[in-house]
């Protein structure tokens, strides 16, 4: 689709010629161009003015920002940067969070770089060893002093929720998708009920239930960590969506593959594991990444149930009397928007690249 819009490279037309062809080819087109220019002017110019030109960039406290009535209050973000990344995690122990971030970064980069070898092994390590290591590092134990979950916050809690959701929802989603396509009526029925139940209700009610009501359903005296309940809720919720994505992949695998696997004498689990699933997952990989993006964005809802995730920590900062300025809240939201955008947009670019690669593979 991109190829259609790109100006033809061969002729190298002059800019006037190009504009005539691409911007003013008809009356309607010219109107569109004018509309677009007005829209861009109306949004980009004030935004740049507010975010950069008229913004406060240095200083301490609200006094630094009050003179800049029509500009962002960046000192707020600068002063809070520690909290935005680590929440209230003990200063002396923050290196542990850094190590987890680094491990995650290296692992993801390895998986995404096309040339690096042993993707499968790295993937398995990321799904098994990494969560355990991250758990020990963040929570404490094995010689590390414990850091209570109440002190977690900011980017780190956002990533904990997102990564746990991703790691847990994929296997669960695959099982549910297989269950939904099973021949066994009870398995199929339960899978459908589970999937439709979670997909039919808003995440916020699910989170509310998990955070505030789950202990009611547990045996007396058994306590459950609030973060853990939220993580379980997010994982179950997104596994239902994941199941539907995987089901799409399973449906797209040709009938012949199923028949071939059966002809080889493979049983159900073997044929699924070695023949069908690898193909199905490959086919729906872009959609899986799409699902991850949704999950990443949904993490912001945990702020509603009282976690100081990225959004929660920014909001608690907004309520601070020391930073009471007309622009504090907006600065926080714009900054967070940029953070989320960078994370999600890079994921979506990756999904797009995968899609192109997969289509290229099929075309051969």
């Amino acid at each position, binding site marked *: 689709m991109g190829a259609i819009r790109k100006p033809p490279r061969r002729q190298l037309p002059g800019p006037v010629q190009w504009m005539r062809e691409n911007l003013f080819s008809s009356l309607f087109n010219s109107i569109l161009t004018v509309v677009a220019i007005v829209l861009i002017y109306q949004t980009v110019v004030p935004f740049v003015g507010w975010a950069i030109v008229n913004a406060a960039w240095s200083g301490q406290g609200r006094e630094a920002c009050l003179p800049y009535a029509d500009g962002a209050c960046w000192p707020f973000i600068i002063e809070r940067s520690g909290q935005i990344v680590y929440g209230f995690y003990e200063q002396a122990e923050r290196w542990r969070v850094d190590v987890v971030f680094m491990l995650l970064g290296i692992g993801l980069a390895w998986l995404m770089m096309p040339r690096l070898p042993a993707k499968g092994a790295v993937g398995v390590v990321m799904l098994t060893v990494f969560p355990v290591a991250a758990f020990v590092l963040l929570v404490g134990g094995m010689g590390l002093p414990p850091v209570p979950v*109440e002190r977690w916050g900011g980017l780190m809690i956002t990533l904990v929720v997102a990564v746990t959701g991703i790691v847990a929802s994929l296997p669960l989603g695959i099982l549910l998708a297989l269950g939904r396509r099973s021949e066994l009526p009870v398995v199929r029925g339960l899978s459908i009920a589970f999937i439709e139940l979670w997909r039919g209700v808003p995440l916020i009610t699910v989170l509310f239930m998990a955070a*505030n*009501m789950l202990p009611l359903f547990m045996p007396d*005296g058994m306590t459950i960590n609030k973060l853990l309940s939220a993580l379980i809720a997010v994982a179950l919720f997104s596994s239902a969506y994941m199941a539907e994505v995987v089901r799409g992949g399973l449906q797209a695998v040709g009938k012949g593959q199923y028949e071939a696997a059966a002809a080889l004498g493979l049983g159900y689990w073997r044929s699924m594991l070695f023949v069908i699933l690898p193909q199905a997952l490959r086919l729906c990989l872009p959609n899986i990444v799409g699902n991850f993006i949704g999950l990443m964005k949904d993490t912001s809802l945990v702020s509603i*149930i*009282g976690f100081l995730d990225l959004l929660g920590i920014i*909001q608690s900062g907004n309520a601070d009397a020391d930073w009471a*300025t007309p622009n504090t809240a907006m600065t926080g939201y714009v900054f967070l928007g940029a953070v989320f955008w960078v994370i999600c947009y890079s994921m979506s670019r990756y999904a797009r690249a995968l899609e192109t690669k997969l289509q290229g593979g099929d075309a051969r």
Partner: protein
Amino acid sequence: MRFFPRSIAAALVAVAAFSGVAEASKSPTVERIKKNGFLRCGVNEGLTGFASPDAKGNWSGFDIDFCRALAAVILNDASKVRYTPTSAKVRFTALQSGEFDILSRNTTWTMSRDVQLGLEFIAATYYDGQGFMVPKSLKVTSAKQLNGATVCTNTGTTTELNLADYFRANNLKYKIVAFEKNAEVLAAYDNGRCDAYTTDASGLYAERLKLKKPADHVILPEIISKEPLGPAINHGDQPWGDVARWTLFALINAEELGVTSKNVDQMMKSPNPEIRRLLGVEGAFGESLGLSKDWAARAIRQVGNYGEIFERNLGQGSQLKIRRGVNALWNKGGVLYAPPIR
């Protein structure tokens, strides 16, 4: 932090305790607190003077100090508290489900909450009443002039109900905009979404400090309701209620008897039998609660008496400068009247 529930044995012990097999005076909640080594306390998400975290995440405030006193009483360390910030809306559900041991979150003691919600209020720690704040520019001097006004408040509070009662009783019209979090109410009010902000008077003083221009806002004289604020626990653990209730009474009695965090150790030598009983020099009151003799002395030493806690967080030692008023001792013109320890 422990991620996994404790062993099944612990659960069985708790079940056994509930079904009355264990010793009658033992509280499963207190036992659990001792075993965990910390008290779990549900507090406000951020209300200056009552409960607010500083930039490092350390909590302070009037409601916080009650939790700290309890931790001092049970664990001999006021810092062994884990705070769960909780919104007005979800606080009861969270308490009912056992997310924390005690809800110390400027919560109004009402009959329906005490009875229908299955809570047990310890006692009132602060007597408050609902008031209104308006911008000075509106030139309003009385709540009776608020006919047709838009009023911002917190959802899930008695405030919503009092507001409806008050305007109905005075035959006034109003529009309510109810937010879930204090910070959201404040932001909306500060951005001109409403004409008035209503909540407990103490809360108004606290929130006014956070406005862009606090001096431009005035708190109206009318107090339209009774708001006895106090900590609550779940129904069904009487001994735990006793510990919490008598901790509060000990703090109030300490003020009455002149025992402070500074002089508590000298007071141990006092000949006054009331002081001797309070500090555990005489009698076995601590043991009767399942604690040690010097239970109250620990709380007073580490946190201070009621008066010290009040002044530090809400009174002259704080930004709020709230006068004791009705919250003074009974013999100083207030209503604080703690039963004697004997």
